[in-house]
């Protein structure tokens, strides 16, 4: 297993880092400023944890499926899941993005002692920051999506250093993958983590995140007005400010899409316990994918306690969602073919590739 030198060469220097934050603070050499993650000095160590945990370095999808879910996937669009629903929180936190189930579920898990604290992304659209939330109030204050890549996982390294366990976290798909790589543990022998470090992982749907150039764009466009909320629905990205709202065409923010996201194979956090996204229809609800047993237990508890309201996922929507996810994977494969040997894209076993092509063909027909 290589180390920092290759991480810098293959990922950082090529602009393929998604700022997940997993390598930040593993040592004194990798640091962050805003959403940038950089190695500030060569550590001189040949085999390093940073390379091992980075979601953008070598990652075998079937191996990961086996490690997380204990079996290979059948669905190559959404990965392994046991149920898909529409859901919303009965008491939606202020500023929650859609149905607010992410905030509600983390809050519930914290109150029930299922997790000791939660690693979330707080701050605001223009100035997001990693947060280790220890109270439901702190969890609520992190509601709402920030669309830039925030290196939230640096909080996990800090928490591990303090010996915390049972941590819950909410992350983008790359962040979920990074934590799974950490748990899988193909790391230098001196890097050992408690099995109980992470107690619950909620993954978000994410087709791309944006670079910090977004801030300059928003500041110019809104003339420095405070932004209350941002969303990227089908009609195009928009913000809500105190005095009104603004909307742009997707093409206007496309230049800010992080390069790493173009190589990302996972748009629904396939290795999370639960995955949450929009419905693309009703902003008051979320799409919820239940992936692990632990995830199912939490959702059932939430339903029992009346924290969540859950309904069936409309049958007609599934092909739309699957097509969107597969579409993205096909774009990545095409890109990876154009630039063979480029880091940042996972390894896909032949069996998976064949099945994926079949499923993709099916969708198009």
């Amino acid at each position: 297993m290589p180390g920092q030198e290759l991480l810098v060469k293959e990922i950082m220097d090529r602009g393929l880092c998604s700022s997940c934050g997993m390598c930040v603070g593993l040592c004194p050499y990798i640091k962050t400023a805003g959403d940038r993650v950089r190695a500030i000095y060569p550590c001189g160590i040949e085999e390093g944890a940073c390379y091992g945990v980075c979601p953008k370095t070598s990652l075998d999808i079937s191996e990961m499926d086996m490690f997380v879910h204990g079996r290979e996937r059948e669905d190559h669009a959404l990965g392994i899941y046991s149920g898909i629903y529409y859901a919303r929180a009965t008491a939606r936190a202020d500023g929650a993005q859609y149905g607010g189930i992410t905030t509600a579920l983390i809050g519930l898990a914290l109150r029930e002692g299922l997790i000791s604290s939660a690693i979330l992304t707080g701050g605001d659209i223009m100035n997001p920051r990693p947060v280790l939330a220890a109270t439901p109030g702190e969890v609520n204050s992190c509601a709402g999506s920030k669309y830039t890549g925030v290196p939230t996982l640096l909080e996990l390294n800090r928490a591990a250093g303090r010996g915390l366990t049972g941590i819950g976290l909410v992350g983008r798909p790359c962040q979920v993958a990074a934590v799974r790589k950490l748990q899988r543990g193909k790391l230098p022998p001196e890097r050992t983590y408690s099995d109980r470090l992470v107690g619950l992982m909620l993954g978000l749907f994410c087709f791309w995140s944006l670079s910090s150039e977004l801030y300059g764009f928003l500041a110019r466009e809104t003339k420095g007005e405070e932004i209350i909320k941002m969303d990227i629905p089908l009609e195009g990205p928009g913000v809500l400010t105190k005095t009104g709202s603004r909307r742009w065409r997707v093409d206007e923010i496309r230049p800010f899409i992080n390069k790493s996201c173009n190589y990302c194979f996972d748009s629904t956090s396939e290795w999370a316990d639960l995955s949450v996204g929009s419905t693309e229809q009703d902003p008051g609800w979320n799409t919820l994918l239940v992936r692990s047993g632990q995830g199912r237990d939490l959702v059932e508890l939430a339903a029992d306690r009346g924290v969540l309201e859950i309904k069936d996922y409309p049958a007609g929507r599934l092909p739309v969602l699957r097509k969107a996810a597969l579409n993205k994977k096909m774009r990545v494969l095409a890109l990876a073919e154009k630039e063979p040997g480029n880091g940042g894209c996972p390894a896909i076993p032949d069996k998976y590739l064949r099945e994926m092509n079949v499923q993709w063909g099916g969708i198009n027909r």
Partner: protein
Amino acid sequence: MSIAGVCLEKPGTKVALTGNEAIARGALEAGVAYAASYPGSPTAEVLGTLSRLAGNFKLYAEWSVNEKVAMEGAAAASFAGLRSLVVMKADGLNVALDFAGALAISGCRGGMVIVLGDDPNAHSSVREEDSRNLCKAIHLPVLEPSSVQEALEMTREAFSLSEDLKLPVVVRCVTRVCHASGDVELGELNRPLPVPDFTRDNRVITFGIQLHALQEQKLARAAEWACHSGFNSYTGPENPERLVIACGPCYMHALEALDMLAATGVGVLKLGVTWPLPHQLLLKYLRNASEVVFAEEVEPFVEDNVTSLAAMQIPRGIKFYGKRSGHVAGPAGPGIGELDPDILASSLAGIFGVKYETPGVSGRAEALELLGEKMPDRELAFCAGCPHRASFWAVRAALELDGRGGIVLGDIGCYTLGMARTGYNLLQTVHCMGAGIGLAGGMANLSRFGFDRPIVTLVGDSTFYHAAIPALINARYHNSSFLCVVLDNETTAMTGHQPHPGRSVTAMGEPARTVRMEELLQGVGLPYVVQDPYDVEATIDVVCNMLGQEGPRVLILRRTCVLAAVRGKQKARVYVDQEKCIGDSCGCGRFCSRVFACPANVWDAAGGKARIDEAVCNGCGVCASLCPQGAIVVERAVL
């Protein structure tokens, strides 16, 4: 060696003094009333000594904001009829040159002496500038002491000469003499001081070519005086065929070299007055000579002037050996670095065609071998606990994080060391005081051609007052976009902690009206932030933030020089918890000793763990804040 010696009343007694103290004593014997300087090695202790004695004598002493202002102040005292002294290193003359050149034309009234500290070999300078060529260019007489005793006498006599000529006189003193110590014979103190005055009738003006003619006359008189001055002397046969012309410490080296060669019949002419040349005296010894060797340090100054004199005055050919011929040369080549008896002996042996085994070469090797075990193998580095180390680490980290390939322009001070490993090789330009800011402004103005790298310039606090302000005004005026980081350790640390305008005390220990950096910046209209560099993580954040801003802006990294901060205090005890240290493993990679590299962070290869060299550690605790394992423990923190 002793301030008591410098002010001892008993004429005729011998006391041990350093060259710098001898200069101070010489000035006191001459009745100096006004002394000013900007600190610089090798002459920093001259004003340091005088300022401490200001109370004992009727004497005003100041650390001026820069050399030009120092020289102007001293000139004013001279215009008013007092004797005055101004002291600076060779580089300082460049700063003061505009005024010095004008002053040489207008002339002065009370005796005025300019002490120039030249630093052959650049022991504590960025270059080994030979100030004599500039002195010649502006028409000032130059005296060069070759010993501590002469440093005293020449300084004293320079005042009389200056008063006679109505022209400032330079005493050029090199590091070897400034820092040497020797027994000197004291002269009389307590010369009566005149009452200063400068009335409406006094005029000291630089104007017109008539004054140039007068200047030449003054120099001709000085040359005449030089021919009879005891500072030039000759030893050897009456009409030597072989002649060595030496000045400064090379005079002693030459005598020793001839001794080593057992060469007889070689005359040695010592020049104490190297400008203007004592023509008649020189011609007397050149007349019969067939081979002449020059022994002087750095530029072939005496050599060039004597050879041109000979070309005009002596019809037959003389063989001249020196830097121009390549015969007199140290290991780095002719005109480069210092000379010593050994170098001169080999040079002379080559010229005279005699055998000479340099004991130096083998002797040096042996000596080094003997010393080897005892000498710690240390490269030049910031002191343990130096706030600059924290500042440099933070700036470097921030630049890497910023990721836009920002550049760093340096300046002159302790932090010049930051071009080396101890400053993470950060500095990319080093020139003269204040140059970093001017360069930064120029680079920033290239944005219109598409130059878009972030620009950082690092400058010390003393340099800030000395030379930064005009460049900052220029930057503000033209909105040149760069980040100026002031490394404010609240003292002039490099030359021995002299106070500067940012402090609340003067050279003489009187309370000062502090010129606050912040107020200056407000006045210039520049935004600034003040941050403690010991808080490294916060500093990285601030630098990152400020890198992202536009326009000229200033970050003051303020933390007292650790040597000043710990003086007289019991230092904190710092040690490494051997259980917690993970040393070479992933997660650290010997961060403290290998990377951050405070001299007190040492690596115990046998144990595979870090240690603190407690004798060296100054207890700043910065390494403890950076250790990824929290393995470094600070007990009884005081800073």
